[in-house]
């Protein structure tokens, strides 16, 4: 366990990049959000992986954005 907080700092800085990458994937995020919101309507039932497709699209867009900032940024 590091006493100087190196691990925590590293993980937290990774987490800080999330909003930027999420902003780059606005369309996929909106699609996933709409899918989940639709299940909250009366008659809908939210189960595990109900919106798996939309989430996969979001996750791959997110990973692509991460790669772009990694290679392009630093």
């Amino acid at each position, binding site marked *: 366990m590091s006493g100087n907080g190196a691990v*925590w700092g590293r993980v937290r800085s990774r987490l800080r990049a999330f909003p930027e990458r999420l902003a780059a994937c606005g369309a996929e995020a909106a699609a996933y959000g709409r899918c*989940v919101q639709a299940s909250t309507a009366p008659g809908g039932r939210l189960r595990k992986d109900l919106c798996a497709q939309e989430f996969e699209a979001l996750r791959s867009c997110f990973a692509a954005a991460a790669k772009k900032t990694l290679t392009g940024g630093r």
Partner: protein
Amino acid sequence: MLRLTRLLPWWWPPPAAAFPVKNLGLRKVASGVSSPGSASPRALNIFDRDLKRKQKNWAARQPEPMKFDYLKEEVGSRIADRVYDVARDFPLALDVGCGRGYIAQHLNKETVGKFFQTDIAENALKNILETEIPTVSVLADEEFLPFRENTFDLVVSSLSLHWVNDLPRALEQIHYVLKPDGVFIGAMFGGDTLYELRCSLQLAETEREGGFSPHISPFTAVSDLGHLLGRAGFTTLTVDTDEIQVNYPGMFELMEDLQGMGESNCAWNRKALLHRDTMLAAAAVYGEMYRNEDGSVPATYQIYYMIGWKYHDSQARPAERGSATVSFGELGKINDLMSQGKKSQ
């Protein structure tokens, strides 16, 4: 209210139980005072108070604590407004769970003679905000106030009672340390606080993981608050609610601010880990379901303000049954009745 991931922070391992008491102008008072009434059988243990102290200490040690103070400053100033509304001076006042002292900075020497500020986090007391009132900082837990009976004219508490395990007992303690005809003015987070965050996490966790666990701490309902205050012995209760909506760029910024405020989750039943996938899903759901026109997301903070008085003979009491001298039916002739009454006085 929210724990992001289970990462051991920089202050690990935690200080040993018998850490030396440094003389920094703080008085660490033993909390072994006999409390009014025995330890209640209804005592719950929902929150890890030790962890909450560590979280508040961590938050107070951040490089820019002012960045996260906006909510507490606002509520502190509204409580100070209510103190000014009471047409009285208070020679001795107590702030329970003061943080960095957000209420004291808005009050003046004429209204409050001396201010005792207590908190469980010593770092918060070390960074106390400037105020013209002479203050004494005391390290104390909200449930174990180390003061004698009938000490204070005024007790205030701003946004710290929602982390107390035994709220009835804490309110009884406050009632105990108040002088007769003393007043307690408090503010607590209410049931609708952060409902957007709660719902988003719930939906995302259900979709991603098949079930969900609570990430937002439970809040007291406004009806329960009235009962609790009554049971603690307060009279002439007033409870009103206020909603503050703060806009954030996204869910991650909200969670970071909550942690910076020292409001991270410390309930015993919290899940230690929040998956990155779930966080991403929740942020997407939050943005889609609650987004404003300009793309920011709102977070609602519902605040309950409560005012309760300790009984004193001089306080107005409801009249005896059957002591009415006029009936409601004569309300139309109220002007005549009043001039009659003045003549007879």
